[in-house]
């Protein structure tokens, strides 16, 4: 107990041990839930956008409970920007691939020509690939919106 009190004394105001510990415990579960929502999005309620928002919220929670720099340690700005672009490229690329393979744009059944699993199975898998892309992009944009607005684009202390 004494040790804890000493630790708390050293910290500047606004940093709460209870919040930090709770957030540290919660974040893995939030992220796992975000992945669950993305992965099950194509045949049950949920999807790339919703799952991406949950994933992004985990980083925002980290930045709120600790500070902006801590969240940047887990997900650097550069990686975040690359992920955002890659997410959209997965989405549009899948659509384009369908068109290049002789189907219509975003007509996933055309992907059957790469790996013959049957057009129906590919419709399900195709939307899954798209949801993953959307999820990555939404997560990255959510986090980057918070970082930029919270620190005026400086990426320093933040809120």
């Amino acid at each position, binding site marked *: 107990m004494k040790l804890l009190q000493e630790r708390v004394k050293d910290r500047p105001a606004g940093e709460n041990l209870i919040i930090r510990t709770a957030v540290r415990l919660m974040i893995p579960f939030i992220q796992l839930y975000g992945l669950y929502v993305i992965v099950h999005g194509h045949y049950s309620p949920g999807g790339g956008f919703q799952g991406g928002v949950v994933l992004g919220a985990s980083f925002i929670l980290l930045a709120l409970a600790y500070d902006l720099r801590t969240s940047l340690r887990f997900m650097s700005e550069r990686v975040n920007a690359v992920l955002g*672009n*890659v997410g959209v490229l997965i989405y549009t690329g899948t659509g384009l691939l369908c068109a290049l393979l002789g189907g*219509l744009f975003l007509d996933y059944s055309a992907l059957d020509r790469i790996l013959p699993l049957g057009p129906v199975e590919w419709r399900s898998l195709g939307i899954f690939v798209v949801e993953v892309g959307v999820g990555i992009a939404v997560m990255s944009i959510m986090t980057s919106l918070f970082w930029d607005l919270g620190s005026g684009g400086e990426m320093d202390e933040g809120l």
Partner: protein
Amino acid sequence: MTSTNLHMYVMMAPLLAAFAVNLLGRVSRAWIGPLSLGALTFSTIGALLTLLRVLHHGAYRYTVGNWQPPFGIELVIDPLSALMLLLVSGVALLATCSALKSVQNELPGREHLFFTLYMILVAGLLGLVLTGDAFNLYVLLEITSITTYGLIAMGSGRAALSSFNYIIMGSIGACFYLLGVGYLYILTGTLNMADIASILPGLNAPAAIATAFAFLLVGLWVKMALFPLHIWLPNAYSQAPTGAGVMIAPLMTKVTIYLMIRVMFSIFSPDYTFFAHAGVQAGIVWAASLAILCASGLALAQRNLRRMLTYILIAEVGYMVGGVWLANGTGMTGAMLHIVNDALMTLCLFLAAAAIIYRTGSLEFDRLHGLYRRMPLTMAAFTVGAFSMIGIPPTCGFFSKWYLLLGAVQAQHWEFVAALLASSLINAVLFFRLFELAYFKPAGEDVPSASQPCGDAPPLLLSPLVLTAVALLVVGLGTGPLIENVIRLALPPGFAP
């Protein structure tokens, strides 16, 4: 790789290039130019092939993801949309050459961010031209608007404030449009334009349909800056980065006018649009005439080249809205021709402004002295653009204005005739005043011409400008075939002469 998807590739190339530019542009600036120019060249060639295909085999429809029309998103590729596809990609290609140079100068280190937004904007405009779905149109309209807000806010000085004003006005416009779509959806249960058009005549809900119609039109008028709703435009377009202005000014208003035509004839019928409500058609022509006169008058008061051009742009919006609402084939031909011509004329003048600002750093009138001597080729191209804007015969501006005048006389809207003629005269005054400043006045002592590099702008700025000036003449001389082969097919049935 089938040709069925050709128009889709036209739209996808800039979209994929946008994210590639963002990824690779971070690594090295050298990637940006080849990627964006390559994607747009591909789009322009693809758009040309699409137009040829439509002219040979007629209009066709396309379902995205193979979801059948009333449920899935449908794209409509008819002569007018194929022509607009070519116009948008061609103008974007020329504007990009100039933007590459200006942006390197004005926003060093942020080029990859600028061109990401820029290419998404091009993709959004191409999508707007293709779509046959009322809600998809809203989504694409917001994609183009949001990227435009971002591009304008990258300018210097008070650009962020102008962009904020534009966000407020643009969002109001978008809300109006969305409300209109909402009314239609409640009435018909569908968002597909062709489907709505087939259901609407059988409905007995005149007040609700009229409300939807009014919301859709007012929303688009805010977005295209028709005169009393134009307040956001001059600041936003004149304070945007030069590279953004060169692309946004020629395309955004013109594409919105194309959308107005789509709403009037593809969702509603010409009969409903023009004759269902007494006085509306005549009232809008009066409003357009007023828009032309007021915007031309305001242009006279400007002391900066780019601000003056933005007011001329607002007057031109009046030309096209009035032309469509004259409710006869000649007026509509004039308006559709003017969409093409005005995009090229505005591009030419803004490219010239970009070249001047690159060399002299200012567009204030008193800094333009002696410009003909210093930048002969740039100013020659500027002169062609100005002649076209005034409407002097071999240039294309004359022909569309001629059709608009003829249409106005046929419809006996003398106020529109008067407004068109007055605006042409005012344009003549505006541009001849500039010619006088730049040709006859010697460069003053205050202009540090010795410290500035003399001569024309660098080739990357100059070549698109000269090409556009040539295009103005070519389109002017090719007006006959253009109307005969493309625009006549785009007129709604019953209006073709």
